[in-house]
């Protein structure tokens, strides 16, 4: 009787109860994201602690917290346009999340060419974002911002900015690499042969997470 219950090899491997009816890979991804949330939380809380210990923005005080409109007012080929460039970056990243959703949907339909198309857009969005960030960094460095100095005000601003946007940018870059790897695997038909596109779903979770974190990074440095 027991033997009958377990002749299906799949049951044999996956045990009796799967309370969330989710595969182990997705559970793992979820727990990873929770833990990564704590890493970012650690950094953002440090940001909060240091920032609140500095004098509030005050044009007369060169050591006060800088005004984001002053710091971020340029883009490639234009000046005096506060926050325009970062708006573009944010928009690109959010769009890439939308294309990611489309890729996941196509994966559910087992539509290889659809997945390829939307993954390509997602990768492109990621690349544009990382590229823009590289431009912004080098621009700010030219203007004299370093991890230990900041012409616009409190030096901790520079340190925190490079640290946190850098750590986020690192996440985006890793995402682009993973997405490209998934793109190639899709192209080679690996997931078709496997019978499901769960890998794209897992990468989708990661990608949305990185997107969500950007919202907080954006709030911390560009808005307040």
């Amino acid at each position, binding site marked *: 009787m*027991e*033997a009958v*219950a*377990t*002749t*299906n*090899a*799949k*049951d*044999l*491997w*996956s*045990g*009796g*109860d*799967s*309370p*969330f009816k*989710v*595969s*182990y*890979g997705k*559970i*793992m991804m979820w*727990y*990873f994201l*929770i*833990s*990564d*949330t*704590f*890493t*970012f*939380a*650690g*950094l953002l*809380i*440090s940001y909060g*602690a*240091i920032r609140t*210990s*500095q004098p509030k923005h005050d044009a007369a005080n060169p050591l006060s917290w800088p005004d984001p409109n002053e710091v971020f007012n340029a883009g490639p080929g234009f000046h005096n346009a506060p926050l325009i460039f970062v708006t573009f970056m944010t928009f690109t990243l959010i769009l890439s999340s939308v294309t990611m959703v489309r890729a996941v949907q196509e994966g559910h339909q087992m539509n290889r060419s659809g997945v390829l198309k939307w993954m390509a857009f997602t990768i492109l969005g990621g690349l544009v974002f990382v590229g823009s960030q590289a431009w912004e960094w080098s621009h700010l460095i030219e203007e004299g911002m*370093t*991890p*230990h100095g900041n012409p616009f005000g*409190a*030096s*901790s601003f520079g*340190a*925190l900015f490079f*640290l946190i946007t850098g*750590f986020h940018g690192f996440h985006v870059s890793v995402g682009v690499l993973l997405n490209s790897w998934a793109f190639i695997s899709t192209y080679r038909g*690996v997931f078709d042969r*496997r*019978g499901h596109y769960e890998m794209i779903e897992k990468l989708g979770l990661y990608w949305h997470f990185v997107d969500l974190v950007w919202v907080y990074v954006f709030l911390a440095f560009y808005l307040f």
Partner: protein
Amino acid sequence: MSEHHAVAHHTEAHAHGHDHHGHDGHHELGFIRKYIFSEDHKTIAKQFLVTGIFWAIIGALLSVLFRIQLGYPNADLTWMKPFLGKWITEEGQIAPEFYNALITMHGTILVFFVLTAGLSGTFSNFLIPLMVGARDMASGFINMLSYWFFFISGAVMFVSFFLATGPASGGWTAYPPLNALHDASSGGVLGVDYWLISMALFIVSALLGGLNYITTVINLRTKGMKMFRLPLPIWAFFLTAVIGVLSFPVLLSAAILLLFDRNLGTSFYLDAINLAGEPLANSGGSPILYQHLFWFLGHPEVYIIILPAMGIVSEVLSVHSRKPIFGYTAMIYSLLAITVLSFIVWAHHMFMTGMNPFIGSIFVIFTLIIAVPSAIKVFNWLTTLWKGDIRLNPQMLFAIGFVSLFISGGLTGIFLGNSSIDIRLHDTYFVVAHFHLVMGVAAFFGMFAGVYHWFPKMFGRYLNPTLGYIHFWGTISAAYLIFYPMHFEISLPRRYYTHSGFETFSDFAHLNAFISTVAIISFALQLLFVFNFFYSIWYGRKLRESNPYGANTLEWTTPLRPGHGNWEGDIPEVHRWPYDYSKHGRDFIPQTEPLSQYEIEHGEHGDEGDRDIIKKEEDENHKG
């Protein structure tokens, strides 16, 4: 029959790109894949165990060295010069910087490499799949990566011992500003960078391992293995992994900030500092920020160390008293309570940082509340022993020793948890006594209990029990002889290189010499265990029965030497909780045995006495 299933797995494995194999014999793996880059959870567990033993020897040896300095401050150590070079001064003394490096590395190695990786890594890996009824971890590959990240992390730490300026020496907590500056100490020149990189790798290893433990317990339980039928060690390993996955990342943030401060000129932790009389340019940071980030991991970390030991001890106590664990459900809920509370007590390590006394009092309250689930557990262990049919084998002795040590060390925790008392006790030997008894030695005892108990399952042979008895009685005596007297050294600050320069401290000279002597003897005893361990792997008495202790859990339903995949045929199905000992006149009833007709499962409605059930069954038999 079993042949048929094996074939089924293989097709499955290829079709779904899964990473599991049935059992070996079908796949002959080469030496490298089988013993070095193995994906079998049992092999990975042994890798963690042996690496842990290696680090334990190093860590304990360091404590012998600094104990020599503390106990015999004027001894002539010139004979060590050939081994330790410039770390022994011309006068034959341990150099002060070396002393600092010794205590730093001792703490780091034992806390992280031995009692986190060595303990969780070994037993979570070995027992989770075997006890929940799975063929392996959710991802064997990630599991293997977890070990190798640990290995590389250890290698980096090891290399730091050979730096010209020495390894990190600013305490295992690596507080800034001391550890944020290159020129404030010799260990700070380079050692701290190695330390931080090693920790970062270690965190990666802990996360990879933890993710696997969590998913395996949630998703890969065999048929019938409900969460409330899990053996207590599994609950403990599961919650340990949850704590790790939530707290280690914060240490990662702390470490990244510290690396930046050290190497990129940032001032996250630095403000208004003079070094050698010269003011530094750093401004705007806060060293207290680091303490918050560190202890947000640091306190949960001590539970990461103790929970697995608690789980192991619960199992060993129950099996070897031939009694169900007392208060199974209460045990689980207290583990859960500890898990949650462990995240909101961290500032009890920081009462002396000038924090607002009101905030301090909130942390006092949570700290005292966490004593409640701990006390429930102690109560339940003692009641499990009560009127048990106790077998005093080495694993049982170590389990009972654990309870004793945990009580002794836990009591002083209640003193320390009150901020008003802690102000007096902070950074004295009273603290050292507290955490060594409750965490250091107690967790070791849990680990020993586990090693003695599951050694036959791991290696197919028994450890030598006579050496085991010597090991136990020697170690428990040494633990109390070393750490009990430290409670009286409450006017002695910890981490001081020497106490001989101060008149008030000279009262303790004899006591310190005594403690150091016992510490050295105790070190020798541990080597005896190491000998027993390796000797028995090859020459121990052979295991001949599959369930030598008459235990209920699933690992004893595997073959004598289980291969990769654990069970040769089907995975057994589970019908009951794991603690049916001395029930219905039977010594034990394995989890795989279905409930008999009138039997009520433990924890199910009502507590119809055993006798009624037996009577009903007997009546039934008469009729039939």
